[in-house]
């Protein structure tokens, strides 16, 4: 039984930029963040880029009296960077690590070494089941030529799949994190449309923060302003999304962001701005309220969803071709290296059959060439293994998307509202029929 009184619930989200030895004033900023969380009357704080466990433990100790429950999601080599601090008991936690997250050889970007994932914690607020998700998607380094777009689309797909499939019994669903995507980017639209999650910035009654709700702004001394110039000085890439259910209506009463420099402090909390959302959970009479939107696939939203999934599928196919090409190149280079090695070994055996030893054996070049061949073979082998995994992940995602599209087709056929056909783009493959 749920209580009938509405409940207020405050959620905080911040990308902490906690890259020890690389991000500026890391330790001091964590102290500031700890102070902020102590002062604010929050229910849940969702942090990203808490890469170092020591920083998490520092915050945990500092916040122990106010937020006695916490969870630090561990995955990958460096970690997922995701941490949750909660005033309410965390009953369960679950992690879903994304299948794709950049390339190990892109060391200057480093995303691959972090095990980017979506973490889920289960809370019970006065009898209401609240599912809270925190995540951090692959960074966007160059918008014009985004080589990580397929990876981010796959992450967005897996994020929405995970949320949809694991929040069936939830009264309230909240997602906070750094999506590294603009509000109208493909991945964000896919996430919102398919899950039915609503953006607190667009839904809130009261907003106080940066212009347009930007969360990465040029006024922040830590940010690289050049990258933000084409976007008018800021981008909105951090979000708090929410959804109610048939039992509970959720509304966002207010949303606020930090605005770069913090008064009284020498520097901001991070290179990202922090988001604070205040929600109101209103238990409804069973059957009223949100039940129609629960599945996120209302008949009038379906055509848009079909288009979005088709668009996503295209991006994934592009990524797939690219990955298959790279794998092919790795294989070819590896074989060339092998042939060269064999050739070299063959040449090396010639002196054994030579009648005399007039010419000294070129040992230096022999060994150097041998080492080169061996290095080429080893690296191409590892790259082949890596690209194979990438290809499998992309194919798997494409298969799931195709399945989703055929489900939508069925739903549309059964829907009482027959919509005009120009809302629907044809699926990519002509052989895509109902029976897949």
């Amino acid at each position, binding site marked *: 039984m749920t209580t009938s009184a509405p409940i207020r619930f405050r959620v905080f989200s911040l990308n902490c930029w906690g890259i020890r030895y690389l991000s500026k004033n890391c330790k001091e900023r964590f102290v500031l963040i700890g102070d902020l969380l102590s002062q604010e009357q929050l229910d849940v704080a969702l942090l990203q880029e808490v890469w170092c466990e020591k920083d998490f433990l520092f915050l945990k100790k500092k916040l122990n009296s106010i937020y006695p429950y916490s969870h630090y999601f561990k995955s990958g080599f460096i970690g997922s960077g995701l941490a949750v601090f909660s005033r309410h*008991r965390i009953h369960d936690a679950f992690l879903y690590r994304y299948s794709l997250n950049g390339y190990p050889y892109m060391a200057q970007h480093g995303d691959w070494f972090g095990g980017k994932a979506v973490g889920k914690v289960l809370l019970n607020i006065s009898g209401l089941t609240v599912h809270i998700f925190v995540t951090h998607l692959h960074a966007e380094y160059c918008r014009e030529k985004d080589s990580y777009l397929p990876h981010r689309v796959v992450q967005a797909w897996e994020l929405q799949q995970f949320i949809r499939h694991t929040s069936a019994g939830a009264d309230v669903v909240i997602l906070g994190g750094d999506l590294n995507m603009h509000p109208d980017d493909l991945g964000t639209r896919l996430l919102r449309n398919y899950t039915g999650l609503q953006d607190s910035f667009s839904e809130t009654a009261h907003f106080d923060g940066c212009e347009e709700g930007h969360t990465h702004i040029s006024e922040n001394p830590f940010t690289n302003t050049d990258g933000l110039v084409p976007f008018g000085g800021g981008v909105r890439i951090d979000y708090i999304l929410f959804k109610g259910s048939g039992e509970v209506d959720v509304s966002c009463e207010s949303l606020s962001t930090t605005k770069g420099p913090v008064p009284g402090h020498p520097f901001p909390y991070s290179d990202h701005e922090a988001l604070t959302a205040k929600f109101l959970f209103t238990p409804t009479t069973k059957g009223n309220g949100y039940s129609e939107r629960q599945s996120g696939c209302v008949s009038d939203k379906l055509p848009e969803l079909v288009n979005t999934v088709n668009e996503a599928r295209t991006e994934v196919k592009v990524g797939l071709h690219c990955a298959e090409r790279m794998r092919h190149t790795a294989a070819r280079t590896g074989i060339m290296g092998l042939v060269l090695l064999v050739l070299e070994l063959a040449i090396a055996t010639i002196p054994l059959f030579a009648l005399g030893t007039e010419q000294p054996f070129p040992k230096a070049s022999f060994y150097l060439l041998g080492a080169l061949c061996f290095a080429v073979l080893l690296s191409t082998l590892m790259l082949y293994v890596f690209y194979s995994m990438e290809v499998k992940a992309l194919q*798997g995602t494409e298969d799931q998307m195709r399945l989703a599209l055929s489900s939508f087709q*069925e739903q549309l056929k059964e829907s009482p509202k027959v919509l005009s056909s120009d809302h629907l783009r044809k699926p990519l493959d002509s052989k895509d029929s109902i029976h897949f």
Partner: protein
Amino acid sequence: MATERPSRLRVFSLNCWGIRFFSQLCTQRYEMIGELLCQEQHDIALLQEVWSERDFLFLKRKLSSSHPYTHYFKSGVIGSGLAVFSRHRIQDALLYQYSLNGYPYMLRHGDWFGGKAVGLVIVDVSGLKAHVYVTHLHAEYSRAQDEYLSHRTVQSWELLQFVRHTSCGADLVVLGGDLNMHPQDLGNRLLRSHTGLRDCYTETDMFDGCEDGHTLIADNHFTKKQDLVPFEKGIRIDYILMKGSQRVTMKCESLSTTKGPVADKPFPYSDHEALTAEFGLLHSEDSRQRGSSDTLAVSEQMEVVAEARALVKEGLCQTEALRDKAMHLMFGALLLLLLPLAMAFLPCSCSCSFSTLGLLGAVCMVLLLSGALLYLLFTTHIKVLKETEDQMMLTSNDLQTKLTGCQLSGSSSLDGSPEIQPLSPFKREE
């Protein structure tokens, strides 16, 4: 609401042993498997070790009229090997790849290269929502000294978490696959006690198959006898598990397994035996979910989680030791590298030692690289083990609270759903 309730559901599960060029008579056995599935017309067939996509496509073509809906789960380097063939529409699919799955350098075991996972398909069985899971856990190569035990425990944990978290809206839940665990092994007990899934073999009244329900038997001439030691006759490591819901009561009417050699055929379908379960489905509005719904079950869950946690901790210690070794390898190689470098720059170096220096340098580089890669691998494993331990601790604490709350209120029954149970309306959280 469905207008027609299906009364029967037939599920098939088989580890196909489809390792091209390695497993014997692969192509011919797939022909046989295809024929069997075509004849039997199971509602859902769950296959494991379909490593080659070509074999999947062959089966798909062969079964296109009997099982028009299929899904092939792709992950890892080689693939997950998991395939689903269904007579009923597959509405959605989701894959969860296990975080731990062996080591890349254990080439002769090869598990690491397969992206072992659990696949979920949501199947519309005449209006009922069936959540069907297919999985394959890490193989057990030596029961006496199982170096993969912690990996399999983590896989069991992730499997149960995945099933628990994704089966909320299901009318019925079926899990089929090769768990590579004996019925009373920790991972199995963990899985069953925390998900409420029931073992068809123990639940059914009508069983026809190998003695004790064995699925890897000595009578199957593909099976290596040394793999079964010390179990002479066979072992039961493949399962079909099931669970109903408040809307649907599921009963396993019958379970059967193949018994090694197949009548009129020169060889069996695989080195594993196939399982076929027939379920009876009863629509009931107010049936209570059996399973973890009383103090006893909660205590049992706590015990098994504590046992699992100890095992994971042990695995953590072992992996930390391995990581230290990798670090020593790196530093050793680095130090060793200084030797040829120093010698190369010394005035008394002569050309004849150049090749030795070069060779030494090359060896050092290889050792350094291997050490670095192993360090990367083991650090990732340590993170996974720690995360699993943390999740187990949360569950343990949660169960403790339930138990205490249960004892305080004097009631001995809680609703069995793994989701949070609403407390009394007068009792606010904290």
